[in-house]
């Protein structure tokens, strides 16, 4: 277990890199929207996991979609990681959370890596690269860095690239962040939980797995050539859900011996067995966004019996860091287990 002081330092490292403090709000994924829905497990889900929400009964779900950037400025059209935090509400009043982002792999392996990354990938002034520098890039068969977005004056891109150049384990995650783009809709992106979890099936069979949400509407990003719009994702989602529900398939990939079980920087091959665990149907954006989007507090280690966290050090660190962040911003406490008085 990562001790409380480390969890506080993790949160502080994130806060220190914000353009300005955001008291009472999340330090990253600050801008978000809460949505209601229901999850129905597939016929086969229960044969892989005994967790209540995989038994086939319809389960209420709270989802919060978010932009990855920290801070109060909303830039929906910027290339950025998006988040999809989901809580499956269980019968006894507890919940099971699944926190996913559009990033397929993380960029650090453990807490030490994260602190070193935070030191290198600080916000720096970000300016348009001059035309002759870009011409030099083209002559070297390099792709010049993107132009700054309107009103973008600072970025962590250069620092993150410096870190990636020194650490091969981080290259995939950081490269993916660079190309991630902006979705046309929160309902048109795939979200990956990056960490490995252990699920227990009937007969106490345990399997290492990774989860992903896949949009039934398909993945679609905005065009890179379009001028990015700052605010469209919330209204798009409200409009979409007024017309028709949005659906996501929950896919579960089963790892094999030899796969990276405790390292979120390493992908698993596409040749692993993949199970369709169920369908999430999003129906409504609640009026009370303070409760549905802001006070609600997720934690990737809040898991129903039948699902366990792996020994992934980043996942372990998130357990404490999310609670510290919740306390700092006054987020809503939530019972972890039926016998948990919290």
């Amino acid at each position, binding site marked *: 277990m990562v001790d409380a002081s480390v969890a506080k330092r993790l949160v502080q490292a994130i806060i220190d890199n914000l353009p300005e403090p955001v008291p009472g709000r999340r330090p990253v994924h600050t801008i978000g929207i809460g949505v209601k829905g229901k999850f129905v497990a597939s016929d086969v889900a229960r044969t892989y996991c005994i967790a209540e929400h995989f038994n086939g009964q319809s389960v209420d779900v709270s989802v919060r979609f978010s932009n990855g950037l920290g801070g109060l400025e909303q830039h929906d059209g910027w290339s950025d990681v998006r988040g999809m935090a989901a809580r499956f509400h269980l019968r006894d009043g507890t919940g099971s959370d699944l926190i996913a982002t559009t990033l*397929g792999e993380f960029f650090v392996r453990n807490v030490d890596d994260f602190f070193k990354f935070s030191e290198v990938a600080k916000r720096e002034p970000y300016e348009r690269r001059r035309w002759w520098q870009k011409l030099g890039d083209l002559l070297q068969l390099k*792709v010049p860095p993107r132009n700054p977005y309107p009103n973008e004056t600072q970025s962590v891109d250069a620092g993150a690239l410096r870190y990636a150049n020194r650490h091969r384990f981080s290259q995939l995650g950081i490269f993916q962040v660079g190309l991630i783009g902006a979705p046309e809709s929160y309902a048109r992106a795939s979200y990956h939980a990056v960490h490995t979890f252990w699920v227990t099936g009937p007969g106490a069979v345990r399997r290492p797995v990774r989860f992903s949400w896949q949009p039934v509407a398909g993945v679609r990003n905005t065009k890179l050539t379009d001028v990015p719009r700052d605010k469209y994702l919330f209204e798009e989602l409200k409009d979409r859900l007024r017309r028709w529900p949005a659906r996501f398939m929950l896919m579960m990939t089963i790892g094999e011996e030899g796969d990276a079980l405790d390292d979120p920087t390493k992908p698993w091959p596409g040749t692993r067995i993949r199970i369709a665990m169920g369908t999430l149907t999003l129906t409504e954006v609640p009026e009370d966004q303070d409760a549905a989007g802001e006070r609600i507090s997720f934690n990737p280690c809040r898991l129903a019996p039948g699902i366990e966290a792996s020994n992934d050090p980043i996942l372990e660190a998130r357990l404490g860091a999310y609670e510290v962040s919740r306390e700092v911003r006054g987020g809503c406490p939530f019972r972890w287990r039926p016998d948990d008085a919290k």
Partner: protein
Amino acid sequence: MPSNEGLLDRIVDWLPTTLGFKRVASWTLVPYWARRTPVKPLPGGPHPSFQRGDNVQCMMNLIMPLKIKSPIGRAEAALAIAQNKDTIYAGLNNVGTVHFARFVIVGDNICMFSVYDGDFTNYIRDFIATIGEVFNEVVKLVEGGEKVTPCEKNVEAFIQWVHERDLYQVPDTATDFLRDQEALNGDRAVSPVDDDLTLLPRKLVLQLRANANVSLGNGYRAYPGFSVAQVRKQLGLGW
């Protein structure tokens, strides 16, 4: 997008999207950088792996340039396949580890694309045993094929010949392609290293110069992780 851009900024942003720039770069910059920073061809076929899931539904993308590069050469190849259809299907049934297989003519190449279970060398060895005669008929129409036919008498040379014509399978993730290059060059460095990720586009261009034909990604599988035997058993199709 930003308001401070001048005419030259706009021109340089637009330049790489133009056909003219791409053509000029292909004729000048690519050969120049290929000389300055040579890149070796990456080997074809699936990456060696001990893990079970990596050893089922493997892909073979065999591209074999025809000797006679004309409709006559292509017709000869088509005829060689058509005349041996029964032999090929019976052989594939006997091999027993093949999910899908097809012959395709692309340009002046006869291609065999297949998805199989198990080890590549055993897969080809099984083919030699079951439809070696058909391979001989096809391979004799292919550049360099006479050196390895009859395949029944040149088993190891034939396996190597096929492997050299099996396409390099670009990994699903861009940075894993860099790991393939590093492995080929014997670079086993660990952190901290001194890479330059901005060179990835050039490295990709030069690799695609060295490996002109490649398989993009590991391919989609509707039911990954299952062998032919498991699928047939589960579906009650017999064995």
